[in-house]
């Protein structure tokens, strides 16, 4: 029996960790759950966690998850009241959101207009600027292509050339000096075409040693908008977030309040509905600029859940059902600190080369304040078909130090055998003095690359590992056992 009136059945249009996480909330709320499942993942934990697994297919597994028509047809067929898009795939595809709503299915997310507005980097910046919120100095090519290079140069160097329709670090070029500008513009444009099918680009000031700070927004259909605190996501590698935390370290309460206030203002101005995240660039001098707004649930939402005690997916569903928020801003409590680490299938010792393999053993970490959000299970295969994030390890502590300790221990205790992961690398970041001191910025990883490299094994450590492997190796044992007596006992005797 669903606890949310009007929503009896939800189709989760996603996979892996997020599909599993959404299904968990659906189950708790007594809502029937369904998910689209590609044949390759028929036995996955996500597929097994829902009441109804609906097969989808396509030229590739990714293509299947991007096939809006197929997904909507499925939602219709199974009689879903609502659809949760997760993150990635079609989550920020305004056309898809529109089509879902047109099919009479509630979209668990913001309105298609919001998606469209905030999905366009140039439009969204224009809108936010016009609404009186801080923006990084920038220039859009579209405004006047012939003068774009000049206007870009006028921002000052270093600067960034970015794709308007972009995200995830793609279509981005850093330009250090004027002589690199022309080439960077061409490269950014062609990448934007290639990855997003949209060659529009813009230039903006490049803040050195910036921090990435974002604010979780929750807004209902009745005009109530509030924030659930900020998150610092500065620890990134090649523009991919690796470690996120809340509250942001080394930040005055005054600054914290100002950033959150700005975020709420932006959401309100955009008449935003449901969950969303406003991202800012925070400069070392305390200036912060609107970066973009993500019109969906973020990967790192669990850290907010850990400190507020709220279930964000539940809030999303209630908002989609038309319910007003059950609490006001002053009711939101923030307790302790939370850190999330993204466990990825990559080999940090081999230049982060993507790793594949069959998961022979998965022992998630346990203990007080430890939460493991993973879509993986023993026997599953990790391939390059989907992105390399396997799971999120989220910890909560009374304070940041305790959270860091718990996160480090959780990472050491996480046993994943069969596919190389970055667990040890993440633990080394958390153990770095600068991280402990809160000296985080988006260049943290390249700046500390040498210190973060794995220490080479000492000979006796190598011997232990090799001994274990040799004794586990069937061929080795067979050959050892094959040696008859008395020869085995005689050893390597020569006359």
């Amino acid at each position: 029996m669903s606890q949310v009136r009007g929503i009896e059945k939800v189709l989760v249009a996603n996979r892996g960790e997020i599909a599993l996480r959404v299904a968990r909330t659906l189950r708790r709320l007594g809502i029937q759950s369904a998910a689209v499942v590609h044949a390759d993942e028929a036995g996955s934990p996500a597929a097994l966690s829902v009441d109804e697994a609906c097969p989808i297919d396509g030229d590739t597994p990714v293509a299947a998850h991007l096939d809006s028509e197929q997904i909507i047809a499925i939602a219709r067929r199974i009689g879903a009241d609502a659809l949760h898009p997760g993150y990635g795939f079609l989550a920020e595809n305004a056309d898809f959101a529109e089509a879902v709503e047109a099919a009479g299915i509630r979209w668990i997310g913001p309105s298609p207009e919001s998606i469209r507005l905030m999905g366009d980097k140039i439009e969204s910046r224009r809108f936010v600027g016009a609404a009186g919120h801080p923006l990084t100095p920038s220039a859009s090519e579209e405004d006047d292509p012939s003068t774009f290079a000049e206007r870009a140069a006028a921002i000052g160097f270093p600067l960034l050339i970015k794709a308007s329709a972009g995200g995830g670090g793609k279509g981005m070029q850093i330009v250090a000096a004027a002589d690199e500008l022309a080439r960077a513009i061409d490269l950014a444009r062609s990448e934007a075409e290639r990855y997003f099918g949209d060659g529009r680009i813009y230039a903006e000031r490049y803040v050195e040693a910036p921090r990435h700070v974002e604010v979780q927004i929750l807004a209902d259909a009745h005009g109530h908008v509030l924030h659930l605190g900020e998150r610092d996501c500065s620890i990134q590698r090649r523009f991919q977030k690796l470690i996120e935390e809340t509250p942001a370290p080394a930040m005055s309460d005054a600054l914290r309040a100002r950033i959150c206030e700005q975020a709420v203002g932006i959401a309100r101005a955009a008449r935003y509905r449901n969950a969303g995240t406003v991202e800012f660039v925070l400069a070392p001098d305390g200036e912060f600029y609107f970066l973009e707004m993500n019109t969906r649930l973020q990967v790192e939402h669990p850290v907010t859940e850990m400190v507020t005690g709220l279930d964000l997916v539940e809030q999303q569903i209630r908002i989609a059902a038309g319910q007003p928020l059950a609490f006001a801003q002053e009711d939101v409590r923030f307790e302790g600190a939370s850190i999330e680490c993204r466990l990825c299938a990559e080999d940090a010792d081999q230049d982060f080369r993507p790793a594949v393999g069959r998961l022979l053993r998965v022992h998630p970490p346990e203990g007080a304040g430890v939460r493991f959000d993973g879509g993986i299970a023993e026997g599953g295969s990790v391939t390059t078909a989907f992105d390399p994030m396997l799971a999120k390890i989220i910890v909560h502590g009374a304070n940041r130090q305790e959270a860091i300790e718990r996160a480090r221990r959780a990472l050491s205790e996480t046993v994943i055998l069969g596919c190389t992961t970055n667990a040890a690398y993440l633990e080394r970041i958390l153990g770095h003095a600068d991280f402990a001191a809160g000296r985080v910025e988006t260049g943290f990883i390249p700046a500390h690359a040498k210190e973060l490299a794995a220490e080479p094994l000492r000979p006796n450590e190598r011997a232990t590992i090799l001994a274990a492997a040799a004794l586990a190796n069937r061929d080795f044992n067979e050959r050892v056992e094959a040696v008859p007596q008395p020869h085995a006992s005689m050893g390597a005797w020569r006359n």
Partner: protein
Amino acid sequence: MMRRMESRIDPHSAAFERFREANLARVGEFRRRQQEARFERPQRDLDRLAHHGKNFVRDRIEQILDPGTPFLELSSLAANSEYEGQSRSASVVTGIGIVSGREVMIRADDPSIKAGAWYPLTVKKNVRCLDIAIENRLPVVHMCDSAGGFLPLQAEMFADRTSAGRIFRNQSILSKMGVPQLSLVFGHCTAGGAYIPSLSDYAVILRGNGGIFLGGPPLVKAATGEIVDADTLGGADVHTQVSGVADYAANSEEEAILLGREIVAQWSRPEKTTIEMREPEPPLHDPAELYGIIPDDIKIQFDMREVIARIVDGSYFHEYQPDYGKTLVCGYAYVWGHKVGILGNNGVLFNDSSLKGAHFIELCDKNRTPLVFLQNITGFMVGREYEAQGICKDGAKFIMTQSGASVPKFTIMINGSFGAGNYGMCGRAYDGRFIFSWPNHQIGIMGAEQAANTLADVKIRQLERAGQKLSEEDVRAIREPVIESYAIESSAYYATSHLWDDGIIDPVDTRNALGVAISASLGAPIEEPGYGVLRL
């Protein structure tokens, strides 16, 4: 269940110390000669090996053996007294080792000596190696790399019953018995040598250096005028792709050896003959004390029991007929866990010791207990009294039962081996599975002194009949050459050179050598017991 032997020697006595020094010197000399035979080569020959990219024969062997396992090399000093010492170890290395968990006989040509050419003693050593394989049903791994027969000495190694042809006959019989053979062709197999891989069940040939041909390029040119290089005539590609003479081609020696190991791993392991076994245990008494027990003079007696106590497991020994026939010690013991019956000389053989020996051999044969003979014998007792008592027929009974015994027999030449005593105590002619000798070993129809005296005596009587007398100097002139030539021809080195045994070993290695040998012997079944008519 047995009692441990007690030791009665005094390791601090002057005699012990004197013997020990002498034996350490003998072993030192043995080790020096062995080192020379095994490793010293003219630089020119080593250069030639390197030029062809060939590994040294002993490295090839070490690579194919299972790590951490023993290798019992046979006849390491073969041919040391012949051919001016040029054919070190008779240009071939043979021995028993473990490859992929299987006991195998390894026979490896040594191309660092005259390109691996076969001398007459090379042929003899090869034949002996395959005789051992047949008797013990040991699979064989051949490492072929030989230029062929050493032509100047062809008359000594071609036509006779146990000449080169016997090698190929033995291979055929081994195959008939179902015992597998592998050939790794690292170099040339020319003329007769080409039959070795051809008669092997499996043949791997090295691309480049490997070649198999009944007639090599020079012979072909001489015979028909055809000019063709070795690789085109009989290289890897021809034989693995066209002719089928070889089964696998390898691109490097390492690959050939690893492939060889994988091939051997395919061979099934037939059940071995079972005999009484027990958990092995090192001797209680220190084998190193053997050096102080064996005298520095062949005329000095020692108690064979002290030797036994330092060879057998736990120094356990169950002595048979301890109060009778005391010049022959008989009893049961264990060597590396195998129950054996030991016969060891403790003096000259008398009627009673001969009978005791024959009886004990009967017991072991019926009991399916392998026999170990420890020789230190100058001969049977002579004299009117003993002839009247029938020493001839008693010795004959000893020889009859020993010859007929079906259980595996092993002989260690501890010290002297003279006259008919050699026969009864299972000398070479009696088909023991293995014979090993100690560096102090001497062997001959009789001792040097005795021979010199006999010959001088004959001459003296001859001249007496003619009414002449022999001066002391004349006597010396007769005796000394005899003693000198006997000194050479009775030495362990001379014996091992001619393959009258399967190798000289350091006394402290005796237990291990026997352990490997006995284990190998159990690859063949033990026939029903029986022997001929005993003149009672």
